[in-house]
């Protein structure tokens, strides 16, 4: 094992449902990768967090964003569009994690350059499996740029 693992992976979870947020956290907790999961509950906060605007001026730029689509204040699609239009932020992989199975949402997300689109499984076991997969793929297999 290399020293890298000492430094935890920074994950930003944009999720208005605390239940889901907690569930994601619990799922990732059971994983192998040392991570630092930060949660914001709406789109406005997500953008502020990423641009390190107050009150997020001390946070670390996340290595990956897990984004729900249906968010209060600023919609997930808008957040996605803003991230991908921002030259500073667009390198950050955005995983759309939502309950929507709508074809329209899937297509729109990819057109806004989402890095992948995942439908939240209803079943807990599957949810954990998906969380693990995200961890496995994005945090282990994929080589992300270093800040």
């Amino acid at each position, binding site marked *: 094992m290399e020293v890298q693992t000492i430094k935890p992976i920074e994950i930003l979870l944009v999720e208005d*449902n605390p*239940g*889901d947020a907690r*569930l994601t956290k*619990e799922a990732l907790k059971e994983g192998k990768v040392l991570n630092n999961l930060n949660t914001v509950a709406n789109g406005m906060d997500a953008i502020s967090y990423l641009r390190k605007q107050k009150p997020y001026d001390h946070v670390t730029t996340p290595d990956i964003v897990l984004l729900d689509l249906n968010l209060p204040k600023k919609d997930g699609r808008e957040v996605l569009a803003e991230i991908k239009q921002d030259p500073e932020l667009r390198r950050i992989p955005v995983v759309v994690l939502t*309950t929507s199975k709508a074809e329209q949402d899937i297509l729109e997300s990819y057109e806004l350059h989402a890095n992948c689109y995942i439908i*939240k499984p*209803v*079943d*807990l*076991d599957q*949810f954990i499996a998906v969380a693990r997969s995200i961890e496995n793929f994005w945090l282990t297999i994929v080589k992300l740029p270093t800040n």
Partner: protein
Amino acid sequence: MLNLSKMPLKRKLALITATTSVVALILACTAFFWYEWRSYNKDIRSYLECISAIIAENSVPSIKSGDTEGLERILATLENEPHIIAALIRTIDGRTLTEYKSADIDDVTFPASVESGVQFTESNLMHVSMPVQADNETIAHVSLLSDARIINDQFWNYLEITLGVMALSFLVAWLLSSRLQQIITTPLLKLAGLAKQISEQKDYSVRAPEVGQDETRQLVRAFNEMLTQIQARDKILRQSEDYLKTMLDSVRAGIIMVDAHTQKIITANACAIELIDKPREEIIGKHLTEFISFNTPHPAHPETAATNHRADVQALIKRYTDKGVPALLSRARIRWRNEDYEVNSLVEISKLKQTEAALAYERDLLKSLMDNIPDMIYFKNNSGRFTRINHAQANAFNLDHPDQAIGKTEKEILGHEEHNGTDEARTLNNGIPVIGEVRRKPEPDGSPSWFSVTQVPVRNTTGIITGLVGISRNITDQKQTEESLAAKATELERSNRELEQFAYVASHDLQEPLRMVASYTELLARRYRGKLDEDADEFIAFAVDGATRMQQLINDLLTYSRVSTSGKPFKPTDFNQSLEYALANLRMTINAVNAQINHEPLPTLPADSTQITQLFQNLIANALKFHSDDTPRIHISAGLVQQQQTKTSKASREWRFAIRDNGIGIDPAFKDKIFMIFQRLHGYSEFPGTGIGLAVCKKIVERHSGRIWVESEFGKGSSFYFTIPEYIDNNGSANNKTH
């Protein structure tokens, strides 16, 4: 006297031949007789002279010696000559020395002349006198008398024989010529027979055979040539006669030609014979009035009628079978080859009379229709003036009688023009009809009333528009009903849509909190199983199970509502393909139960292919699920059937699909219930499932304007049937539905 010209040719010929031969014979015989007569005379003279010379010579000694006895003996030798009846020797002074007489002669007188030679006596006896000379000196004369009659007798005998021969020759000549004349007459008679046959049978195509080399052949040839010419002429004649006859017979009017004076029928064409309805033989030669009676006195009067005089009269063709046929008779008088004829042409007018009756019927029908129909009917001429209206229209115009509208415009009647003036102009000028147009007209009290107006141009036989006819009906009640129905339908549609939306949204929004419940109870189970007490474990298990089933129900509900909310437009769908997809989706289950699935060729129909796949998938999954102990066998078939006719739809065709299995079957009591949402016939532990599958099937089939049902006997398998119309519009309603 025989009349030679009347005598048959063969007899003539025989007679000519016989006569000729007899005449020749007579001439020959005459010549012969004449010659014979002469030579006989000559002979007998020389004979007599010779005998007398011999006697003279022989008597010389006896005379010298005066031996009378010797002279007698010499003369006695004449007995051998019977025709010499007497002889005399006398001296030159006329003294008789001796005399001889034949026995049968009594008395003879010798002529006194002693001139030498033969002379005839007065009693027609030949007298020969010969001088007896001695020493060149006449000493006596010998005279002989010969009876010429004996010679004549001989001659007559001769003549008789000749005549006999002649008669015989005539007979022979007659018989012979009678036979021989056949050589000439037979061909002639044959020719004559042929000519007779031709003239009787009018068959000019026959020809006489050319036999022999003589003039008969020339005659036959000439005869044949004549026949050829006659045949050609006859053909032309017949042709023109045929043309004329065909022409006459094809005329659809009866033509009867009569003698102008006798009024007897000379000829009649086919139509005339048909009209009179009697055989031709019974018509020709009869008086015209036997068949036709004239309503007015027959104007034909031979004396007064001028040539080519014409007259038309009403007539009645007499018939035994019925009252007679009314006809129009047109008569023309013609003069042809100094004879007067009348040509009568007959036209049956019973049809005309029938037509008149039919027209009257039609007129009455139209009148009764117009008078009794509640619809308003009006006719206008092409200047927009009414030519006729019915009572209903008169009532609408507040007129007492329909005739009051005639000749007036709408404006003149109502005081204002209806707003359909442009339509009327279009109908009158361009022939554009108005069909069932709904028009709104305000009632006097201001409430709206509705009319359905149909207005079409009226054309004359040449197609020129002479006016228009319009029918309008008050449809206010109908319109109001329609409007309220349409409003209800819209309301129903909206409420339906809302309900569907509600179901979708409700189930969708239910999912979120439910996911929380399910996830955290599951998390509880994972984290705390065995860490709390047994009851807690059991409670958690029930909570998890309930949440899972709730999720399934919501998913099913979503699927169910999506059939209508997420349905795609209908496109031509190959049902074979849809079935293949369904089978591919079910592959694992099929393999697990080792099912045998086969299907017949399926059609391509307008449908939502995804839903058809789902339909097959649900039905086959159902069959696989409820299999019996036997190997599951599923058969899918399809056939074209005539659709049931209902009040609102015309009969059209639809495809009926059948999915037959050998599974456990369904109690017929439940055959309708199984298609209802969340209806289950079995315990959850026996056959898991929410009971959504067949409800979805029903919804899919109904979206395709079809029907679904099951026929089954418990324990003997089931057959699920569904229908899809052959034609269907893109909105998902069959073409036969009326809105």
